[in-house]
Structure formats: structure tokens, C-alpha cells
């Protein structure tokens, strides 16, 4: 294959598919390379699809995309060892079309998205691993694959190769990831009859619930747990910063087992059949860990560019948006016959800066550091809050004033007045 393409997209996840679709739809000659047996076979996500980002690419996606359940209820739990305190938000507005978000199963969804990319005119080749970028001087001119005679050339290469992004690293565009900038998440999928899920979560057909969890389930590590309802399955997982796993000496699978055994979670999983166990790194370093995103003949999109908003559990929407903006950048440059050099591809960064992607990442830039340095948010506070609620709700002949005094004492005793105020300020600054 010695022919030259307008663009090569490496990877067929949400970012790569969005870029390839945008480019092919406009009539460019696009090659997309995917190392899996089929698109999706190497990809892992919770997974929640936010409609808005996809709507801007494929407005009528709801007609045939494999969607599991639209989400009508969001639960946030703060867990102690034996209990949880939570908030639930359920709204009929979230149960009115067009729906805002859905659970999806990535292997199916990515396959569907890839079919759209192919229908738009891109050439998609699977079972092909890109080994390195072909570089002429400083400029990326193509890719080297693991197939015979595997050099392929293009005006621009879009790197959508995921969190590990080996290609950018080998080319020196991107330093090695640091354990503090990635979370390791493990998850299982458990199958049930549809009606069992609907009864357990008090939902109708196609309606879904998500539970996000923080607290003692991560054993003091910075991280979260989650439980999502699919059509006939539940996904349950937990993710913590890799630097914490390294320091803590807890295995990820033991952490997941311990979380599944929590008295509030165990009944929800009762009787299911576990059919897959997955693990994935999530780039959660935030704004300050974003690498150089473009150069002569290349751009980085999706997880490879650290585009995950950990505070809001958003990633695939940032991936799709970055892929689309990279595609639109190439289209604009093509229209004015401008070469795909760094000075022109800078437009991609300008577009990202103007979008919610960079604005949100910038907003939460302090959060990773605050959580790293303040473990009390993962252990002490969940414990205190749970104990306080327990104390208030337990009817045992002790008067309420005395109970309130005891609760106040427990907070001040653990954190001191100064500490409590400092913690409030830190959280406010991190989410400001």
C-alpha cells in the first residue's frame, strides 16, 4: 500500500471515529487503522454516552446506535465500611426525549460508530498495529504498521491511540505517563434478566440509573466506584490513582471484590452472571498534564491527550469533541490549501481552548493535587458523615442537643476547627 492519504487516523475509539467520520464525510481520503479484531475489541469504558457530543457529529444517532438505557437517575454515595450516605437525583425531564445520556456497551457501540465511519467513505483496516510514526526531519509523513510492507503515507496523522499513546512517546512528542496522572480502573459486567434490573432500581423499560461512589471503598486511595445499569447487565467497577495503588499495596481485583461485598452493594449484584473482567488506565492528570497536542503533520485526540474530566466522570464526550475539532481543523486547512504544519495545526488548539473541553479541564486544574495531598476527603470525612447521620437517626433515648454536641466534637476532634475550615476552602478552590 504505497498510496498516499489525506489523513491517517490511528485508533477506532470515540476520538478516532469522530475524527475519521468528520474527515471522510467531507470527502477526504481517510485511512483508519485499528489493532483490534474489530473496532471496540480493545476498548474499555464504564460506560456512559453523553448525547450532545455525538449529536454534533451524527445528529440522528438514536435511530440505530446500540444504546442500553437512558439515564433518569443519578445517585452519589459516600460510603463507610458498613453504610452509605447518599443523594439521589431523579427527574422526569431526564426521562423525556431526546435523552441526554445513555449507558452503552463499548464493544457494540464502537462497532456501530465504525460502520458509520466506513459509510462516510473512510477505509478502515483492523488487526493492524501501528508500530511507529514515519518522520522526515521534524515532520510526520506517515505510519509504519506491523503488516508486510507496512509503510503508509498521509498529509496528517491523527493519533487516537488511547491513554498509553505509545506512538507519540516513541516520537518524543509526549513524556512517559506518571503514576500520579493516571487512574487504574477495573470492572466487571454481570448479567440479569431485564425485569430483575428494573425491579431492583425502580425503573421501567429502557430507563437507567447510575451510582457513583466515594469513600472507604477505595481504602484511602484517591478514586471512585461506580455501578451502571445496562439493558440486561450491570457494570460495577472501581478506579484509583495508580500512584496510590503503588503505595498502598492493594491489588485492584481485591479492591473490587471488597467493594462488591459492601452491604449496600451486594444485594444489587445478587444472582447475576459475571461474563467479563476488564481493566483500563484513565488519564486523570487534568489540565496541567496535557501534552503538546499538535506538531508538523500530527495531532493528538482523546485519551492520548489527557482529555478526561475526572471531577464529572466525563471522557468519551471530550474524546469525541477533540476528534471532531481535529477533523474540522484539517478540513479548514485543506480548504485554503494550507500545509499541515504546526503553525497551521495550532488552529486545533485554538478550537479546543474555545470549547468546553479545555474550559472544564482548566476549571478543575487544582483538583488532582488537592485530592493527592488531602486523604481525609477519602477516609475521614466519609466516616464522620456516616457516623453523624447514624447518630442523628438512631433513636436511643439520648436528647438531640447532646447528639449534636457529640457530632461536632467528632468533627473537631478528627480535623480541628482550623482543619475543617482549611478543608472547606481547599474543596471550594478545587471546584471553583
Amino acid at each position: 500500500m504505497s498510496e498516499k492519504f489525506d489523513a491517517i487516523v490511528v485508533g477506532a475509539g470515540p476520538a478516532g471515529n469522530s475524527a475519521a467520520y468528520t474527515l471522510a464525510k467531507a470527502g477526504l481520503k481517510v485511512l483508519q487503522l485499528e489493532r483490534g479484531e474489530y473496532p471496540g475489541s480493545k476498548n474499555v469504558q464504564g460506560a456512559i454516552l453523553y448525547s450532545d457530543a455525538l449529536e454534533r457529529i451524527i445528529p440522528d444517532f438514536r435511530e440505530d446506535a446500540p444504546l442500553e438505557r437512558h439515564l433518569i437517575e443519578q445517585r452519589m454515595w459516600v460510603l463507610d465500611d458498613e453504610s452509605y450516605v447518599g443523594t439521589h437525583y431523579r427527574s422526569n425531564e431526564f426521562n423525556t426525549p431526546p435523552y441526554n445520556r445513555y449507558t452503552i456497551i463499548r464493544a457494540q457501540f464502537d462497532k456501530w460508530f465504525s460502520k458509520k465511519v466506513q459509510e462516510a467513505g473512510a477505509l478502515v483496516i483492523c488487526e493492524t498495529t501501528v508500530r511507529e510514526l514515519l518522520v522526515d526531519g521534524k515532520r510526520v509523513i506517515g505510519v509504519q504498521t506491523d503488516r508486510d510492507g507496512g509503510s503508509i503515507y498521509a498529509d496528517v496523522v491523527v493519533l487516537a491511540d488511547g491513554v498509553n499513546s505509545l506512538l507519540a512517546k516513541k516520537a518524543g512528542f509526549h513524556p512517559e505517563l506518571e503514576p500520579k496522572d493516571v487512574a487504574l480502573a477495573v470492572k466487571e459486567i454481570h448479567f440479569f434478566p431485564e425485569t430483575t434490573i428494573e425491579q431492583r432500581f425502580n425503573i421501567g423499560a429502557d430507563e437507567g440509573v447510575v451510582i457513583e461512589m466515594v469513600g472507604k471503598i477505595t481504602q484511602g486511595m484517591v478514586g471512585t466506584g461506580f455501578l451502571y445499569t445496562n439493558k440486561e447487565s450491570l457494570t460495577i467497577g472501581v478506579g484509583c490513582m495508580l500512584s496510590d495503588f503503588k503505595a498502598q499495596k492493594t491489588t485492584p481485583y481485591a479492591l473490587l471484590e471488597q467493594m462488591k461485598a459492601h452491604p449496600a452493594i451486594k444485594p444489587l449484584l445478587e444472582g447475576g452472571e459475571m461474563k467479563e473482567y476488564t481493566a483500563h488506565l484513565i488519564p486523570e492528570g487534568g489540565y496541567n498534564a496535557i501534552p503538546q497536542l499538535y506538531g508538523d503533520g500530527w495531532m493528538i485526540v482523546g485519551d492520548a491527550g489527557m482529555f478526561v474530566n475526572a471531577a464529572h466522570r466525563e471522557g468519551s464526550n471530550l474524546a469525541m469533541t477533540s476528534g471532531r475539532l481535529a477533523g474540522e481543523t484539517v478540513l479548514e486547512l485543506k480548504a485554503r490549501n494550507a500545509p499541515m504544519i504546526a503553525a497551521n495545526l495550532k488552529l486545533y488548539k485554538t478550537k479546543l481552548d474555545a470549547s468546553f473541553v479545555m474550559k472544564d479541564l482548566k476549571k478543575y486544574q487544582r483538583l488532582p493535587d488537592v485530592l493527592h495531598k488531602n486523604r481525609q476527603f477519602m477516609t475521614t470525612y466519609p466516616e464522620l458523615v456516616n457516623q453523624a447521620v447514624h447518630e442523628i437517626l438512631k433513636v436511643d433515648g439520648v436528647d438531640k442537643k447532646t447528639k449534636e454536641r457529640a457530632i461536632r466534637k467528632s468533627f473537631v476532634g478528627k480535623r480541628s476547627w482550623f482543619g475543617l475550615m482549611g478543608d472547606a476552602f481547599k474543596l471550594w478552590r478545587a471546584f471553583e
Partner: protein
Amino acid sequence: MIKVEEKLFQNRYRVDSGRPHIDIADPEICQVACKSKPCTVCCPAACYTAEGDGRVTLITDGCLECGTCRVICTEHRNVHWEYPRGGYGILFKFG
């Protein structure tokens, strides 16, 4: 408590026999220089085992291709990590 081996048993793999995609660059570094051996704790597929004599053995058949072992080997950079050949390795049914 489900063991990790039982979890991995549910997964679908196409193993590239005889061509592991991850290598320990210098086994002596693991055995002698590396005290903490984080790969043996953090790998979510338990591919790395700490042996009694300090050696670390690696069997990549159950690898989930997450990249953890590469990223955490910060002191010694002793993990040579590539993606498997196209089409090989873990094949997620659901993802």
C-alpha cells in the same frame, strides 16, 4: 471472593504463542535492585509473580493491555511494553 484467575477465565483472548508483547528487560534488576516490585501488586491481571528468591516472573497470557506495569516501573524502567500484533491479545466482548 472470586479469584483473579476465575475473573480472567471469563475473558476472550487470542494468545500470540511464543511472542509475548511485554518483556522484562533485565531480570536481574527485578531480582536484586527492585525492592518494592509494584508490578506484582498493581497488575490487574496478576501477570507478574514475585518468587521466593526475589525473581519476578511474567506470563502475559491474561494481560488486559492496560499499561499499568509500564507506567509504575518508574525507578528502573525495566518493562519493555508493546501492543500485541494486530488482532492478538485480549478481545473484549463487552468492553
